[in-house]
């Protein structure tokens, strides 16, 4: 089995990938502006929901329950979907899913598809796989279209082109759509996209989508979106294929009551998405004639096996954690080297890849906890990050790793008062070659990362415990006199 999460297995480490991004002032300004706007909108619509915390708890409980009985619910979904006239396919990994989808497109005699934004298809690199089979995929979500035409990669789960501003978008459209006179007003850009896409909506016979939710008891698929491109792709083609991770399942239609309140508020700061589509199977004379669902594992069952980390699979991909994350705010999404950026990406990607790759990602967080606070399904991301750091250390680090040796030495020092006090004295003595006027400005080795932008005050002449001992010594002397 080959598990793939976009190019994450071969992406550079987070700290390395961050360097050029931190120097891109335009990108950083775009990211800050966009995330600030979404956060403000989110705060307003969350603030007006009096039972927000109860909704979060309910969602978390539903997801925990679903994962406990995931096999049952998946089979129930398969049965209900099939009964409604749909077809369910099981894909063990990314290649499997891509092969199944390419096969279906060929089976229906197609050589192009129209797509709704689906991060799962970015995870499997579906477009590249289809291209190899000479099948053209047309992205119809505005942001995905920008990414596709600009030969770029998504940098955000909900707003994939968030790192581009409208002038940059205009440049891409001008060149790729051959529109030299295109303006930079939002109306100009959407009109250009609309014109470009309309022809595809009306001519392409196969549509591909993801799934926000798979409903086990009715066999329904739910898609929420803002642009109406989804509605076009779901209703106009003859054939509709949905690719969805197995964690997208929820037990009952009624559960949507919880999730459809949480998702739009968390994702785009809206009370409700402009377009909410729900369907089961096929209906004669209405919509696609053939409907297929590809259920994707691609590492998810191994995430499920990890007791501390399985809450990762609660995720409904709202990206609220990205918008609030102070690390994402600085780098944008490309530093995470995966379809999934931000705090959730930092826990999803390495787990799907079995912890063998993307090992820097669990460390791409200051553990500030802002992500957990906004998460609509209460994933304790900082806890999972710490747990995954433990797995990196225990399962992946070589025995003689310098960091591991330093940490073990420090632990040995802290388990003995005598050693701790000796280390304090040695630090004070050893620091002098590095100290100038009471400060250290250029430390060696890893600590140089500290003094690159920060000074460090020299260790004081007396530790607290030395002061304490001295004070009590003199008090005792005064008492004896």
């Amino acid at each position, binding site marked *: 089995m080959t598990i793939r999460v976009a190019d994450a297995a071969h992406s550079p480490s987070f*700290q390395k990938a961050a360097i050029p991004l931190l120097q891109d002032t335009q990108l950083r300004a775009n990211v800050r502006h966009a995330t600030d706007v979404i956060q403000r909108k989110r705060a307003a619509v969350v603030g007006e929901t009096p039972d927000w915390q109860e909704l979060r708890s309910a969602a978390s409980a539903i997801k925990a329950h679903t994962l406990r009985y995931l096999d049952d619910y998946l089979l129930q979904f398969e049965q209900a979907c099939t009964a409604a006239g749909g077809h369910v396919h099981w894909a063990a990994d990314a290649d499997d899913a891509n092969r199944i989808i390419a096969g279906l497109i060929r089976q229906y005699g197609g050589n192009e598809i129209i797509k709704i934004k689906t991060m799962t298809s970015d995870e499997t690199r579906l477009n590249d796989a289809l291209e190899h089979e000479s099948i053209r995929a047309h992205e119809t979500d505005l942001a995905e279209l920008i990414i596709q035409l600009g030969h770029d990669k998504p940098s955000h789960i909900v707003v994939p082109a968030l790192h581009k501003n409208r002038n940059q978008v205009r440049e891409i459209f001008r060149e790729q759509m051959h529109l030299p006179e295109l303006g930079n007003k939002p109306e100009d850009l959407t009109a250009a996209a609309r014109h470009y896409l309309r022809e595809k909506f009306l001519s392409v016979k196969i549509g591909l989508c993801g799934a926000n939710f798979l409903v086990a008891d009715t066999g329904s698929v739910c898609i929420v979106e803002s642009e109406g491109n989804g509605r076009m792709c779901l209703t106009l083609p003859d054939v509709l294929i949905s690719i969805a991770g197995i964690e997208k399942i929820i037990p009952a239609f009624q559960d949507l009551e919880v999730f459809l309140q949480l998702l739009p508020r968390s994702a785009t700061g809206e009370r409700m998405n402009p377009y909410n589509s729900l369907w089961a199977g096929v209906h004669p004379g209405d919509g696609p004639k053939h409907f297929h669902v590809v259920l994707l594992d691609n590492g998810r069952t191994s995430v499920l096996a990890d007791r501390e980390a399985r809450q990762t699979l609660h995720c409904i991909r709202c990206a609220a954690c990205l918008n609030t994350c102070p690390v994402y705010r600085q780098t944008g999404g490309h530093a995470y080297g995966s379809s999934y950026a931000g705090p959730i990406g930092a826990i999803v990607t390495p787990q799907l890849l079995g912890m063998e790759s993307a090992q820097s990602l669990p460390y791409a967080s*200051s553990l500030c906890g802002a992500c957990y606070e906004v998460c609509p399904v209460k994933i304790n991301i900082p806890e999972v990050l710490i747990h995954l*750091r433990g797995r990196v250390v225990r399962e992946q680090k070589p025995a003689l790793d310098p960091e591991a040796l330093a940490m073990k030495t420090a632990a040995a020092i802290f*388990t003995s008062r005598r050693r701790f006090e000796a280390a304090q004295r040695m630090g004070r003595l050893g620091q002098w070659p590095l100290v100038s006027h*009471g400060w250290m400005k250029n430390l060696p080795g890893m600590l140089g990362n*500290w003094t690159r932008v920060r000074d460090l005050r020299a260790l004081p002449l007396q530790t607290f415990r030395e002061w304490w*001992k001295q004070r009590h010594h003199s008090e005792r002397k005064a008492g004896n006199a």
Partner: protein
Amino acid sequence: LRVSLFITCYNDTLFPATGQAVVRLLERLGHTVEFPLDQTCCGQMHYNTGYQREAAPLMRRFVEIFRDAEAVCIPSSSCVAMIRDHYPLMAAEQSDPGLARAVDELLPRIYELTELLVHRFGVEDVGAAFPHRVTYHASCHSLRSLHLGDLPLRLLRNVRGIDLVDLPNVDRCCGFGGTFAIKMGDVSAAMLAEKMQDVESTRAKYVTAVDNSCLMHIFGGLHRRRTGIRTAHIAEILASTAEEPLEVPA
């Protein structure tokens, strides 16, 4: 009350003035302070960096040293968070029911300094004086793990002569994050730059917080930029009086 002070390893070594201020403050309020000399570190750095196995003996050590304390005062919210959020699970994993019980019994007696003052002692005016312009940095653990809310601000507002100004984006991380500041140095630096901009916009002379770890990072940046802005742990401001003002090292 007899208060056992857990000073924390980095305050002990790097910020003795904070510990001295805590002692002065608690004694001024009429309490007895004791300092068990066997104490070292709560294990936070190890735990958060992935060395959970190495952190376990440090948890055991902490519990043994403080299990009989009437109240434990800790002038660091991240160390309190380590103890409250992680010790119960760590103890459970040791399959030692005695240890797990000891942790459960000890936790209600663990106080971050401002919690001790306001919740345990019911004091919001500690009789301090600090005639300077000050801005308060809310550390992430104090906000999102301890949920201190406005406890530190209530104490600061009662300080004589203080000119307390709000820090913009007060709930945003400063970028310290323990070993994050080293491992992800460039990102940490970018976060710090933004925090320093917010600090400078307040025209405060001092930045205070309940954690010296954030302050070490923030002051390190401010000093490098020669801004002249200083940092002081909240204990140092609360210990400061008209007769005995805060001593500022050169």
